[in-house]
């Protein structure tokens, strides 16, 4: 029963968020700020993770395929598919849910408990829309860029470590990466990414926005926001995959 009340409250919140900004120049400025503070600041982190996970994926596939009967381009192909289909869109989104989600929930939660949200409302500003809408647009715009970047780096990481460890030569790997490439897989990855970006931007914002109390509750809101967006990402990953890849 409680969960239905929560879902109802969430959608009422979303409706408040998606109302027309009263000033487009203000909206545009906050959008750019959010792109930088949430998105651009994640580039290094995503690059680091992608390079190393790409390497590990390649190495594990290479070890498992150490069989003279299997063509060697399979390593590149399997690496590419696991990165494009799962690692970059889902795993990186999960990691971003931690980084961006906790940032969003704690920023908004702090604004709630220090009455900054009341101050906005008192100025006649729709605080939900003013605070959350730029974040949604920023993530929907920038997360696909981050994911693309992650795909490239993960594949480069795999290639580099394959060559470096001698498990898979450059030609074999690049052959595999190009072999039987399905463009729809990339579209599928972007659809997932955008869906996950919506979750990462709105759910932690929701928990932050309705924080009651003080610093302790802000921490709790942040935890709830991250945990529940991760769970939702996993569930939607399953549903979207069922829907699109069957």
């Amino acid at each position: 029963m409680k969960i239905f009340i929560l879902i109802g409250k969430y959608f009422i919140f979303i409706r408040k968020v998606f109302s027309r900004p009263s000033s487009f120049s203000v909206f545009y400025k906050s959008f750019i700020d959010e792109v930088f503070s949430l998105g651009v600041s994640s580039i290094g982190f995503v690059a680091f993770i992608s390079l190393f996970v790409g390497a590990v994926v390649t190495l594990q596939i290479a070890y498992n395929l150490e069989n003279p009967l299997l063509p060697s381009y399979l390593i590149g192909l399997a690496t590419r598919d696991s990165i494009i289909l799962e690692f970059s869109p889902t795993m990186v989104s999960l990691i971003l849910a931690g980084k961006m989600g906790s940032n969003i929930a704690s920023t908004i939660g702090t604004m709630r408990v220090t009455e900054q949200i009341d101050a906005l409302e008192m100025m006649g500003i729709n605080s939900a829309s003013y605070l959350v809408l730029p974040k949604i647009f920023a993530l929907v715009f920038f997360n696909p860029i981050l994911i693309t970047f992650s795909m490239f780096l993960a594949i480069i990481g795999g290639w580099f470590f394959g060559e470096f460890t001698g498990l898979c030569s450059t030609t074999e790997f690049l052959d595999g990466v190009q072999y039987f490439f399905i463009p729809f897989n990339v579209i599928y990855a972007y659809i997932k990414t955008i869906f996950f970006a919506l979750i990462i931007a709105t759910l932690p914002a929701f928990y932050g926005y309705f924080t009651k109390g003080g610093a302790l509750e802000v921490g709790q809101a942040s935890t709830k926001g991250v945990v529940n967006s991760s769970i939702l990402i996993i569930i939607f990953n399953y549903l979207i995959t069922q829907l699109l890849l069957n």
Partner: protein
Amino acid sequence: MIEVKNITKKFGSTLVLNNISATFLSGKVNLIIGQSGSGKTVAIKSMLGLHEIDSGTIFYDQRDFSSMKNKDRQIIRKEIGMVFQGGALFDSKSIEDNLMVPLIMFSNMSKEKMKYRINFCLKRVNLENVNHLYPSDLSGGMQKRVAIARAIVLKPKYLFCDEPNSGLDPYTATVIDELLKEITYEYKITTVINTHDMNSVMQIGDHIIFIKEGVKKWEGSKNEIMDSENKDLNKFIFASEVFKRLKSLS
């Protein structure tokens, strides 16, 4: 003028405001006084619609705020300035940008005019050269003054302050009280201030409402307050040694 009639506010089953009626006059400093926890903050937040009241009516110059939809309330809110108990400055924005928020949203001024207005308001609260600092760079008293500057930047008709001088030294507290009084008289604002500071009461209290445990117990001016026979009020006023001595002198 703001008229509040029979407002009641409950949180769950606890009654925080019990059937309060009062009138807040324009061009006057109206005070709501009472002990910590008596319901002062809830009272002004209810008047502003930040808490929904359970019953009663609230009129802003004959406009029935209590039965309005959010959209119409926003129109009235643009005429209201509010100084929150904790200041509530936007800590991700510089002082100048804090004052800029309402201006950008609701005025058609040019950038230059806005800057001029911002500097004017900051000067009005005795702050200069703080435009590019952040709230965390300022002392508590300075933050309060910025909050007041932000509240008056759009020339409000109504000004609400929740304990504007709590946590400040006596001198700065006096400066802020005087400032609020001057602004009120100068611009004919309907000012409503929450306080439990008896100095403020004696200094600026044109019209005072005393509440205890959510019930209005007394109403009057600073000239009447010392001679009142009201038991609850006297217990509140003469809690401090200074005021006890004052009483024995008079």
